[in-house]
């Protein structure tokens, strides 16, 4: 009798885990397709999925594993809280209102948790997850490409780079060559070409898969990735511009480096030093840009004079159209001592004049100063460094096939990299809606994947430690 009762209370973890994992893939597809472009919707889904995943996996991770994950996630949590209490979400018209700002930490944390927990589900396949992520992105890119081509023509970004249309009796705010059509929520709208191109840029990283799939033995998967890569690349070619050709070249170099680092193990050392050198150069450049941007700091005057007197440095750091908004933000943030996030003192009574709104820095990291303050930017930078370290561990581990690793790493780096030189926080041409970078769908997927990667590396380490001691006995759980 007792035996019968116990069996009634048991359920098969494997089957439930797979169902929840399937829901998790659905959520990724939903976000990847940018459906609704609704941050709160993504957050709500993430909360439900993370709770369900916790229920089916909580026996599988040890306490120490969870603690190390909590430490890993700490900078992201702090960043998201600082972002929520900033004035930025309040003035993000149509994006996030004050009562909904709580969804910033909730979405980021629960999405990360979902990524971490789904890695614990037995038989959950990275390959299928990446197919879903890239597939949904590809559908989105295809819709955007066809719509844009219906309104414009291939290479219109070059042909009409100085032409305008008339909208509501006035010339469009930017030339035709600087905008494109996108499915935004449930309608097609004109968005900035920089924002539009982020999606195909990220999608084009799927081309790396072709170097790791045997065409003869796996034709369908090869065809899927080839089609997706083609869509991404043709979108980039059809909308190529004078500036974007540079970002495309960076993307090609990155993809080549990624493939070579996997295919030629000897090259890893060179690439490692290369990445290290780029990191150092970036930190130095950032310090230089921050100091140069300060308009009220007497200590910076000497350096500013040196830069201003050098034609090349002056052009690079002062007088080009991309650096101007960056300087504006960095000057506003540091001069105003907004170290705890913009508008923290005006949380109850929002004061939109206290923040640097509307500066199109087209760089998510500089935007993070704007959206979350100095500490916010610092914490998201720390999180990226943590993620970078974990990427290296994942890269060197054998917890996934080379194909999965290259796709996952490619997606994360391509997202953060392309957003670094192309994220437009005010993407709509005819409306002033602010879209903070932390609600950008591929960024959310990257956050999910970073945690997933953490879980995979963690799980592999634990399995190696315990495989000679005991076998995992969590196929069934009594509730």
């Amino acid at each position, binding site marked *: 009798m007792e035996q019968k009762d116990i069996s009634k209370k048991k359920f098969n973890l494997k089957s439930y885990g797979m169902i929840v994992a399937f829901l998790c893939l659905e959520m990724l597809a939903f976000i990847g397709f940018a459906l609704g472009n609704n941050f709160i919707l993504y957050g709500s889904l993430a909360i439900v999925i993370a709770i369900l995943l916790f229920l089916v996996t909580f026996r599988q991770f040890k306490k120490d594993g969870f603690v190390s994950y909590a430490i890993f996630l700490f900078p992201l949590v702090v960043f998201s809280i600082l972002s929520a209490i900033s004035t930025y979400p309040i003035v993000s018209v149509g994006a996030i209102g004050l009562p909904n700002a709580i969804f910033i930490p909730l979405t980021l944390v629960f999405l990360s948790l979902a990524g971490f927990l789904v890695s614990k589900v037995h038989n959950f396949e990275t390959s299928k997850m990446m197919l879903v992520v890239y597939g949904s992105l590809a559908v989105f890119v295809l819709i955007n490409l066809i719509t844009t081509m219906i309104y*414009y023509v291939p290479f219109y970004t070059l042909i009409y780079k*100085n032409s305008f249309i*008339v*909208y509501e*009796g006035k010339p469009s705010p930017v030339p*035709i060559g600087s905008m494109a059509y996108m499915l935004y929520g449930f309608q097609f709208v004109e968005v900035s070409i920089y924002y539009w191109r982020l999606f195909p840029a990220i999608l084009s990283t799927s081309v790396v898969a072709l170097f790791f799939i045997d065409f003869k033995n796996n034709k369908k998967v090869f065809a899927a990735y080839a089609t997706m890569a083609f869509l991404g690349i043709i979108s980039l070619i059809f909308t190529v511009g004078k500036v974007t050709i540079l970002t495309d070249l960076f993307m090609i170099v990155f993809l080549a480096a990624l493939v070579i680092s996997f295919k030629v193990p000897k090259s890893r050392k060179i690439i490692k030093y290369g990445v290290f050198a780029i990191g150092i150069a970036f930190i130095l450049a950032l310090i230089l840009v921050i100091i140069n941007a300060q308009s009220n700091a007497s200590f910076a005057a000497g350096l500013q004079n040196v830069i201003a007197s050098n034609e090349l440095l002056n052009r690079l750091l002062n007088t080009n159209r991309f650096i101007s908004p960056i300087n504006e933000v960095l000057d506003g943030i540091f001069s105003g001592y907004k170290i705890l996030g913009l508008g923290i003192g005006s949380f109850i009574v929002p004061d939109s004049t206290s923040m640097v709104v509307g500066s199109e820095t087209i760089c998510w990291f500089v935007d993070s100063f704007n959206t979350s303050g100095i500490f916010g930017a610092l914490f998201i930078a720390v999180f990226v460094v943590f993620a970078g370290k974990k990427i290296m561990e994942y890269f060197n581990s054998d917890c996934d096939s080379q194909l999965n690793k290259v796709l996952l790493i490619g997606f994360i780096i391509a997202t953060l990299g392309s957003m670094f030189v192309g994220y437009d926080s005010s993407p709509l041409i005819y409306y002033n809606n602010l879209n903070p970078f932390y609600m950008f769908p591929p960024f959310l997927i990257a956050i999910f994947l970073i945690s997933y990667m953490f879980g995979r590396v963690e799980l592999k380490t634990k399995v190696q430690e315990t495989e000679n001691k005991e076998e995992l006995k969590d196929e069934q759980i009594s509730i």
Partner: protein
Amino acid sequence: MNKFLFKILSFVPFLVLTSCGYGLKEVYDGLPYNSTVFEENYYSVWDKTLNPDEKKYQVTETKAERELTDSDFVFTSVEDLNFKECEQSWNDYIYEEDVEIYDEDETRTMYGPDVKLSGIDNSFKYGITSKLFDGQLFCNGDYQHARMQIEPSNTKREGFGIRFSKEMASGAPYFMLNFKCSIVTENNYSLSFGYSDVTLKIGFYVKNGNGLTYIPTSYRINEAPTNSGDMPSNRNNSYVCFGFKLSEKTGDGLLNLDRLVGISFEYELNSCTVSLPAGEEPLHAIMLYEMSFPHSSWN
């Protein structure tokens, strides 16, 4: 592998074929019709489907010109009783402002922004003629951003013909446009205030089975303010708010414009009271600010 590559690359012609350039029909280097020379701002563009001189002309039936009378509830001012008959919410609107209301206690809404066609349907937001559908009834110092400058059709056909991308469903209780007249000399000398005697010729293009039915209308206004100022306190006297009632049910004798897809606007100058310097040739224009079918719906 080659076969597979061929399949993928065959997608390129498909994408190129989808490239209709639909959004590139009207492309400018900046804002057109924005010259300091008066006559360079005359707008006279006819959609090919509405222009008899074009091969794509689609009018298959032309009705006799309808001279509008008081039985059509024609109005020429917002204070006109006929306008109050047409606009059921007359008391809920402010008619002298269309940009911003400074009075915090004001509960009425601005008429122009509330009845503008671009607010009813997004398709009216695009193109140079979007100036007529943006809810800006007055100049407000915006000049070229606000008005369409039309030349009289006394000697040859001027004016314009617009083809809408959508058709009007039933529901517009009346038609309205807002304008004033302007006259300068050939050398762009500013002249004093006066009145113009003009005959408006407004054509409506309604879809029929295999083409369009052209319904021409006309109405003479003897005293259209000319070279008038733009002070909100005096707008009822310096602008003409012209319009007439449309049929909401068949058999009421009013004009029925269901399935409307186009409109044309011309006018003839009969006379003008503004005195001219000796030896100067005048240049006359109607400055058209807004055109609307308030409370309409479009499919």
